């Protein structure tokens, strides 16, 4: 790595990176700003980040006695009304609860299955181990678009269409996680496990008391990625659910939009509520997430 690059390069890098960071962040600011606008303000002024009735120049105009957005009908719209309405009428709380439920259950179960399988592939010998692992690996490459229809058909045979179980069950399989964890487990020195064996531990005991505590960072990383992947699921719940009460937030948002004369500020309030948990989670755990990318084993 060019650690000590010349300073002009470093200066240029700072400038470009800052500009880029603003570009990255701008849509979020837009989203938050739009969520505080009234419907009328939004349809008249889609460009501004700050709702017109709060802008400084509008306030100045109002003070000077000129017509301004502060006097427009509806300017006394309470600040958080869109959020309240989104929950009260848009049932966003239900969508959020569904997203949270799905994400948690899927993460926990998937992690559990993945840990078991990864440990077996990493540490145990059994007939057909390589073949089975190869099979697992090959499924990672299957594009989800191809799997959408048959999974739906399988679930409808099982009678689980339009149920929460139908959303869960196909998502419990995570070959990528198995692959990652196996890589990680392989890198743990075996002496510790030997020591535990000598003390008479069975496999489960080793797993639980030795291997897992050592893999905390990998587990957290994988868990976070799985959680976020499950939270952001869109196509599968769209296909398998028809009862609006079970929709996660992603699907719920897409249907708000298709109503005629969509209430965009309310939709944006819902989107803020939908992405905020992930952002908070991300900021709290970014060390694991961003660092964990390098764990993802690009050594093919």
């Amino acid at each position, binding site marked *: *790595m060019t650690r000590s690059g010349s300073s002009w390069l470093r200066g240029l890098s700072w400038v470009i990176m800052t500009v880029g960071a603003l570009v990255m962040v701008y849509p979020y600011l837009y989203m938050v700003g739009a969520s505080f606008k009234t419907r009328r303000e939004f349809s008249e002024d889609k460009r501004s980040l700050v709702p017109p009735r709060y802008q400084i120049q509008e306030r100045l105009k109002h003070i000077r006695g000129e017509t301004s957005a502060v006097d427009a009908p509806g300017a006394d719209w309470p600040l958080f009304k869109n959020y309240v309405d989104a929950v009260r009428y848009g049932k966003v709380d239900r969508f959020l609860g569904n997203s949270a439920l799905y994400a948690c259950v899927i993460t926990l179960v998937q992690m559990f299955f993945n840990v078991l399988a990864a440990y077996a592939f990493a540490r145990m010998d059994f007939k057909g181990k390589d073949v089975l692992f190869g099979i697992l690996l090959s*499924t990672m490459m299957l594009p989800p678009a191809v799997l959408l229809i048959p999974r739906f058909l399988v679930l409808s045979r099982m009678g689980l269409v339009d149920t929460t179980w139908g959303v869960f069950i196909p998502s419990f*399989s995570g070959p990528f996680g198995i692959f990652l964890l196996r890589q990680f487990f392989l890198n743990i020195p075996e002496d510790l496990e030997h020591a535990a064996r000598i003390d008479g531990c069975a496999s489960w005991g080793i797993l639980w008391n030795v291997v897992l505590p050592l893999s905390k960072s990998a587990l957290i990383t994988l868990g976070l990625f799985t959680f976020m992947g499950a939270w952001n699921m869109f196509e599968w719940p769209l296909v398998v659910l028809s009862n609006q009460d079970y929709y996660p937030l992603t699907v719920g948002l897409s249907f708000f939009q298709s109503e005629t004369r969509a209430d965009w500020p309310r939709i944006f309030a819902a989107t803020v509520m939908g992405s905020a948990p992930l952002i908070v989670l991300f900021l709290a755990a970014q060390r694991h997430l961003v660092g964990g990318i390098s764990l993802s084993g690009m050594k093919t």
Partner: protein
Amino acid sequence: MAGGQRRNKVLRKNGRSFLYAAWTPYLYIAPALALTVLFSLVSMAISLYVSFHHYDAFAGKSELIGLDNYRRALFSQDSYFPLALKNTTLYVFLSVAGVLTLSLPLALLCNQIRKGQSLFRTLYFLPSITPGVVVALVFFHLFGVWGQLLDHRSTALVALVILGLWSGAGYNMVLFLAGLNEIPGHYYDAAKVDGANEVQQFRHITFPLLRNTLVFVTVMTVIGAYQVFTSVYIMSQGGPERSTEVVAYTIFINAFAVAGQMGYASALAWLLFLAVLVFVIVQMKVFRSRKLYD
């Protein structure tokens, strides 16, 4: 403390004394394997099977029609598949080009910065963790504010590419950064001793040694781009004038919005899979990953 008396027998004797029953490993892998086999491999087989039939969810009766669905997809006048494949491939190319011209330089630049690096990594990574639906809804309006990108046939696909680049730039940048981190520092020191400037360092050290990462990022981008769906579904619904009709969207419409075309949609899905497979095989042949140093 020399171990308890266990019922489990020692299985192998390669200097390791693993104490587990012969069936334990299978127990451990069973749930994950069963689910994966059912929902990936068996599902692929089902998809293939359905693609040879005419399938209507309610009327249930599916009739074997052999390759008719495929014929219709490729040759029929009312088939959207050739156009969708063309659109999707164009999208893929633009995405790869965009990623390479955007995330790679960003990673290189970010690497120059010591202090703010983790802050920038965080900020750039934010879009990757936001649900695609949210991003599409916001950009639906932003594209309207910034011009008329979604209104014209020639620019709508570009708008989608921009959206994809915005979402993925941070993720790819972090991948590149990780790859850059793996290049041993002493190579650069040696190069500097020999009097190489930055550009030469890049050409002779950075670029070759990033090869694996580049390949990885390219492949991941291609595989992801072939399946773009959410942004089309939310923002353009295949329009204007079918310029953003992508394969995943056509599959979805035929399978889940129109009734009775699931067989046809399955055939489309398999054709998509073959297209992606061809690409991946080509990539593996061309870029055989090698150990590049020591």
